[in-house]
């Protein structure tokens, strides 16, 4: 629970920091002429409110008694395994988005689908042929729908598609 609370404090700190920085930036906004409430005033109101409510939540968090959640070794291993799986998926999605502009939409989508299915199946090699087949079908359908029927132009790419 302490870890979870630390995470929430960090989350709120980032939110408060962002609100504070944006509040500071409002002073560099162009003034709104003939407006009782301008763009900067309205934004400041929202940021101040956000700071107050986040502050209230922080106060509540620190006021609550802390307690540790004891976890078993097995539990720890499972938590670590799940966390790694989530982080790896995030990384794969990030690389996929970079790949959209370098490899092209269809090739990067194909690779993403195969790799992601492999990761989420807990690295089972058995599913690879199935994953390749599904990915080819899906990419082909997307190509027909978006590339041919809707005529949507995907980002410039270095490869064929």
């Amino acid at each position, binding site marked *: 629970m302490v870890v979870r609370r630390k995470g929430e404090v960090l989350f709120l700190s980032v939110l408060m920091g962002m609100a504070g920085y944006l509040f500071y930036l409002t002073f560099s906004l162009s003034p709104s002429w003939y407006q009782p409430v301008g763009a900067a005033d309205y934004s400041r109101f929202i940021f101040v409110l956000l700071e107050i409510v986040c502050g209230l939540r922080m106060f509540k968090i620190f006021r609550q008694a802390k307690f540790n959640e004891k976890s078993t070794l097995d539990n720890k291993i499972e938590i670590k395994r799940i966390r790694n799986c*989530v982080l790896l998926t995030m990384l794969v999605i990030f690389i996929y988005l970079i790949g959209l502009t370098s490899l092209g939409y269809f090739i990067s989508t194909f690779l993403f689908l195969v790799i992601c299915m492999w990761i989420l199946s807990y690295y089972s090699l058995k599913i690879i042929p199935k994953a390749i087949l599904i990915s080819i079908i899906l990419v082909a359908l997307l190509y027909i729908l978006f590339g041919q029927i809707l005529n949507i132009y995907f980002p410039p790419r270095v490869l064929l598609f």
Partner: protein
Amino acid sequence: MSNFLIGLQSVVSWYALPLIASGVALGLIFGAIPGLTATLAVALILPFTFGLPPVIGQVTLIGAFVGGISGGLVSATLLGIPGTPSSIATTFDAFPLAKKGQPIKALKTGIISSFIGGIISGMILVVASTQLAKIALSFGPYEYFMLAIFGLTVIVSLGEDSWVRSFISALFGLTITLFGMDPVDGVPRFTFGFTRMQTGFNLIPTLLGLFVFSQLFSEIEKISERYIFKAKEKMDSFRFGLREIKNNWLNFIRSSLIGTGLGILPGVGGAIANFVCYDQAKKASNKPESFGKGAIEGIIASETGNNATTGGALVPMLTLGIPGDTVTAVLLGGLMIHGIQPGPLLFVEEVELIYGIFAGFFIANFFMLIIQYVFGIKLFTWALRVPKYILLPIIVAMCTVGCYAINCQIFDVWVLFLFGLIGYGMKKYGYPIPPAVLGFILGPIAEKNLRLALMHSGGSYLPFFTRPISLIMFCATIFSIFISLRGVAKFSRKGN
């Protein structure tokens, strides 16, 4: 009545009915897939309607519109991911009900509710469209601002266990609307010198990021479970009968009226209606504590409300020529391509067309019911048999292409990813996501209309309380907050 029969004659033919059914089916598919929207479905069909008679072309497009809004129910129920912004509130109860092993009950309730909402709004459209258009025209910045504030009161009841967290979430949603072009002056705000930021964050990537990616990562955390639902030998065999309709008739009527009313107002629509209907149903319920845990009243309210907006949205489009949102803008384009200028004169000069559209709207709703109830449920529940390791990457790929297709900008795809990470963080630390989305939807309406109203009144806040509709909205807001706080107090007492 005779006009309606003339209209009905023009759309009931061997050649029009299959077209309407195809439009509905395509809309349902697009609505059901996260990332693809009703707008995209209507835009896809639009070129095919150029060669058709105007009335048939228009009802085919309306079919896709009705299907697109209803289709959002499917992914909201089976994946906990709203297929469209109109079905966000559906996820609150439909997904938990499906998780309890009753996906068929959740789907059937949603389908029937969508149908009833569509039919009631259609009746209102036929009977009172011109009168309602006048009411819509009387909405100025004061009324819109009060409406946005009324909508925001929903956040109190969305966060019963911690209204502070709910409030933080809503304020976060309001904050992200501040990026981009200022809605009154048109001056760039918090763009950090990036040209792409001038348009701010688009609704669909933000919504999909917050909902889909957060749900996706939560499902990955439970990846040891092979399916989203525990594999069952047999699905529940629930029948939505007259008893359910009788027990919830007030909910149906209330949600239909709210949905139609909000649908009429340009720029409001289904994204807000589903929240407001859900909130009102919760407040009126004898068992508000069951909401969020699979209450069918919640599904009825959200789905009836969002489908009722479809009829409402056609009111300003046909009577005034004002499109309320992007879908009705495409529908309007479909009429104008044929040289038809919507407006009050259309009701005098093009009786067959207008009543043909009205009749087509009813037919589209019937097709929506038949396609979903008879064929859809079997197909949708098939998705439950797809293992997570296949389903989740496909959802990511669909969301990515859907977000890119909106503006053909890779920026929107990065927005999807960014808000996905934020949404996951929020979910992990117990911050509800719906208030953030509500803040994001209502933020621009609130800011623009507050500033315009104050410019109009010379800085005086008095007109907010002296104009009749605005005053009614204000009273409704106070009443809504009071009821919500009473609910929160009850909840806290029970918790203690």
